[in-house]
């Protein structure tokens, strides 16, 4: 390793021109990445993370311009390069991997063509280029590269596509690799694979890495040093360990507190939140940018912009009171009223539910023989990779999709008709949903008042004055105000939109609300507020949730029971604590192991090979045997295991006896002190 810096940003300022005015996006960012170093850049959306990446390769959108400072790549000033030199620099020394590999690859060219093209640019042609491409695919651990070369991007899974994108980025042996949210949108199991790959490549290559992510845990696992960006300013920097274990800026402190950590559960207290909003781009900032949202802020913070204080050991913090940052008071009180566990009869009882689609003439069993029960005020967490049938199951409950004949859904002891149209008004309003994407879920042509009034009219059966009174209550219960009623959804931020969607679901006093990844599109601070809101509403109204999420920390926080689905089958079902603490099904074990942990205490590393098989052609025997790290033999391939009770209320679908699972998984569940 040399002392030369791979990337050096000096006082970089970038502005976007909007409405004939330059609006500052980055403000005097200083950042240095040493050769061979992995640097993580974190912050909520709108902080300017991606703008940093785009500035480095001078790919800013047309209305963006660098208004000050300098960028040096490998010691060369990027700002001074002419078009040809810039092209050379992009071709030779810097590569970028984007969030969505599906969009980064050309859909109409074979993988092989796209890869060899890069080598041809470097002057290698014909067979030599092809050999290099195969070597590149081998390097990103793609088995059978020859066949992958022949395929088109759409024929590869998301994880494979991202590997190919990484292979392309590495093809020119760059000195600087920029990864912009490379695993966002991938399943946890695939994310783990891609992160492992990046980790391994780091050891093999000399490239420096700029790793951009909103996921603090991912950054903590991948990077040596980390910078926290807020409102286009670097507010804290230091070694990853220091920043995450001993943060010195209130914003970092607050961000870390928003995450449900260490198996925190809703009955142990509320999550902390960050009040207020990020200053809009181009906002005129006097004093500290975070002062408005910071409980520690004093007059000095509002008047005098804090410099980047040097705290020694390469640590920097842009806070006047960096020594007190960790004493930041909570924005949300943790206390909650203790609720006594109830033994009410189940509100929902599902027996033997099946859903078969026809796929090219073959039956595709999206949901197979699912039985669950749920009490009032409980949350059932649905966990599994995409394609495991979580959403189909939710749609069956809602009646949006009709199940196969045979199974039954009972709501408060009464049979629910399979189709929504044949359910009674009371049953319809009793089962509602909060969708993943509020932009799709809220009609963009209607005002918030229209959306909620209509829900109250149809679901609550209200009209006139009573409707208005109830509307006011409803709006307050999700912590919106009258002011929000007049606007259209697009005028609200993501978190506020999701509150409207929650209010709509609660308009008719539902018994069950399906929450389909309700926080996956939100920043962590907003996510915490939404999770708190859901927990509060639940404890107040005794409503039950079916909670779908790929984020196991979030599921664990909110759920009382967990159902782990794989290819439409329940692999494990039981009380949340039992499922998480184990012994668990090998699939659950693998899912848990795939979650990046903030404290880097990786006790077990179980990686699933390949991707989830097609439900149209499921493996024989135990459907998980093709990927199971604990497969015991032929029985797994020939005979489908029954869902057997391991402990009261905790069932596991596995041939390995419970005691044996406990023995196998024992060393791995040691929690760090």
């Amino acid at each position, binding site marked *: 390793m040399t002392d030369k810096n791979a990337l050096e940003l000096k006082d970089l300022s970038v502005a976007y021109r909007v409405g004939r005015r330059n609006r500052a996006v980055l403000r005097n960012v200083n950042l240095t990445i040493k050769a061979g170093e992995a640097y993580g850049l974190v912050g909520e959306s709108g902080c300017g993370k991606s703008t940093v990446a785009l500035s480095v390769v001078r790919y800013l959108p047309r209305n963006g311009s660098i208004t000050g400072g300098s960028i040096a790549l490998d010691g060369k000033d990027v700002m001074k390069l002419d078009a040809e030199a810039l092209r050379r620099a992009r071709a030779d020394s810097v590569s970028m991997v984007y969030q969505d590999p599906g969009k980064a690859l050309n859909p109409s060219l074979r993988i092989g063509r796209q890869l060899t093209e890069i080598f041809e640019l470097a002057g290698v042609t014909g067979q030599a280029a092809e050999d290099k491409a195969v070597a590149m695919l081998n390097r990103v651990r793609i088995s059978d590269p020859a066949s992958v070369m022949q395929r088109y991007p759409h024929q590869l899974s998301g994880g494979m596509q991202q590997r190919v994108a990484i292979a392309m980025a590495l093809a020119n042996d760059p000195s600087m690799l920029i990864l912009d949210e490379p695993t966002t949108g991938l399943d946890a199991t695939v994310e783990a694979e891609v992160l492992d790959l990046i980790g391994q490549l780091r050891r093999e290559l000399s490239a420096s890495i700029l790793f951009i992510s909103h996921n603090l845990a991912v950054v903590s696992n991948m990077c040596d040093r980390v910078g926290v960006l807020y409102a286009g300013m670097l507010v804290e920097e230091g070694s990853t360990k220091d920043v995450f274990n001993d943060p010195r800026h209130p914003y970092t402190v607050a961000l870390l507190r928003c995450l449900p950590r260490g198996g925190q559960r809703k009955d142990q207290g509320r999550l902390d939140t960050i009040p207020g909003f990020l200053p809009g*781009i181009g906002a005129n900032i006097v004093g500290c940018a975070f002062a408005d949202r910071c409980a520690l802020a004093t007059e000095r913070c509002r008047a005098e912009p804090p410099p980047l204080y040097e705290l020694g050991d390469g640590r920097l913090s842009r806070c006047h009171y960096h020594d007190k940052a960790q004493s930041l008071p909570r924005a*949300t009180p943790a206390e909650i009223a203790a609720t006594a566990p109830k033994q009410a009869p189940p509100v929902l009882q599902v027996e033997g539910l099946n859903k078969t689609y026809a796929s090219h003439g073959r039956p595709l069993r999206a949901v197979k023989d699912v039985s669950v029960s749920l009490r009032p005020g409980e949350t059932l967490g649905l966990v599994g990779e995409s394609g495991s049938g979580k959403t189909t199951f939710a749609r069956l409950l809602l009646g949006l999709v009709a199940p196969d004949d045979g199974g039954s859904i009972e709501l408060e002891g009464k049979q629910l008709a399979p189709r929504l149209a044949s359910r009674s008004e009371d049953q319809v309003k009793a089962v509602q949903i909060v*969708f993943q994407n509020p932009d799709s879920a809220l009609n963009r042509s*209607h005002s918030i008042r229209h959306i909620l009034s209509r*829900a109250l009219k149809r*679901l609550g059966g209200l009209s006139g004055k009573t409707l208005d009174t109830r509307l006011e209550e409803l709006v307050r219960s999700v*912590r919106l105000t009258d002011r929000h009623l007049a606007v259209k959804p697009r*005028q609200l931020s993501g978190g506020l939109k999701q509150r409207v969607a929650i209010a709509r679901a609660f308009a008719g006093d539902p018994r069950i609300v399906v929450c389909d990844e309700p926080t996956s599109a939100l920043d962590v601070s907003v996510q915490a507020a939404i999770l708190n*809101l859901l927990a509060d509403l639940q404890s107040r109204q005794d409503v039950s949730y079916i909670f779908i999420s790929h984020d196991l920390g979030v599921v664990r926080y909110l759920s009382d029971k967990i159902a782990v689905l794989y290819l439409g089958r329940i692999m494990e079902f039981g009380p949340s604590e039992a499922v998480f603490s184990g012994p668990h099904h090998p699939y659950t074990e693998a899912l848990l192991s795939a979650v990046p942990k903030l404290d880097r205490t990786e006790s077990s590393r179980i990686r699933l090979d390949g991707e989830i098989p097609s439900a149209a052609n499921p493996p024989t025997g135990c459907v998980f045997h093709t990927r199971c790290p604990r497969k015991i033999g032929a029985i797994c391939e020939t005979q489908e295991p029954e869902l057997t009770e391991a402990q009261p209320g905790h069932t596991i679908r596995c041939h390995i006896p419970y005691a044996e699972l406990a023995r196998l998984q024992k060393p791995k569940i040691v929690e760090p002190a």
Partner: protein
Amino acid sequence: MSATDTPASLPAPAPAPDTAQRSPWGEVLHSLSRSGTFLTGLFILLFWVVCALFGQHFVPYDPLASDIIDALTPPAADHWFGTDQLGRDVFSRVIVGSRDILTVAPLATILATIAGTALGLVIGYFRGIVDDIVSRVLEAFMAIPVVIIALLAIVALGTSKITVIVVIGLSFAPIIARTVRSAVLAERELDYVAAAKLRHEGALHTMFVEILPNVIPPILVETTVRLGYAIFAVATLSFMGFGIQPPSPDWGLSISSNYGMIGGGFWWTVLFDALAIASLVIGVNLVADGVHGAFND
């Protein structure tokens, strides 16, 4: 309830103080007001609208008054565009001739839009067998030239402006229905439609209250495009004698009664009417281009 959470207690929701402040329609208007294409088209269109509304008050001659002595005089100071075979002032006729076409074509387009939108919403929303059958019928319908349909209708119903409006309106409706259908197909997959189902909303409410407002932009674009075609269709039908009837100074009609004169060198009896049709169609198409651009930026 304790204020355990924050957004409510904070000033104004987040939108950045930029173009996001404008409503979507405000943004479209803003974009239109800066589009040269749209403004040029609008200028041409407005010119003809003014002629249609007030032309008869400022034209130098009565467009219907014939003066056999002065027949077929070439353009000159007292007859700017010359006179036709009956000695009628061509300039006055061109100006006032915009009136019928600018009544019939827009009305036909509005009829096509209303019928096409309703049809498109229904087949896009219900899909399945309804869509299969109706779509095939529409395709068959679209395969027949407007002129043939007009001929049949006029034989059956007799010539009148109403017949022309109905014929053009109904023959354009399938095209608009197809545009609306594809917009509705995308829209109905959005979760707000599922949310409406989960309120037991009826199909009519879902189609017209939930979905319709969101498919207005493509409908508006298609409508302006159709207006251009409608103008052309009206002129064609009039030229063939199935459209607007004499003694109207309508452009298509004038061309058809004078085009035999071109051979004799009396070009002015046809040229100015033809230019009028062309300019109106171009104007409407420029407007359509501008509207399309404003919605798709």
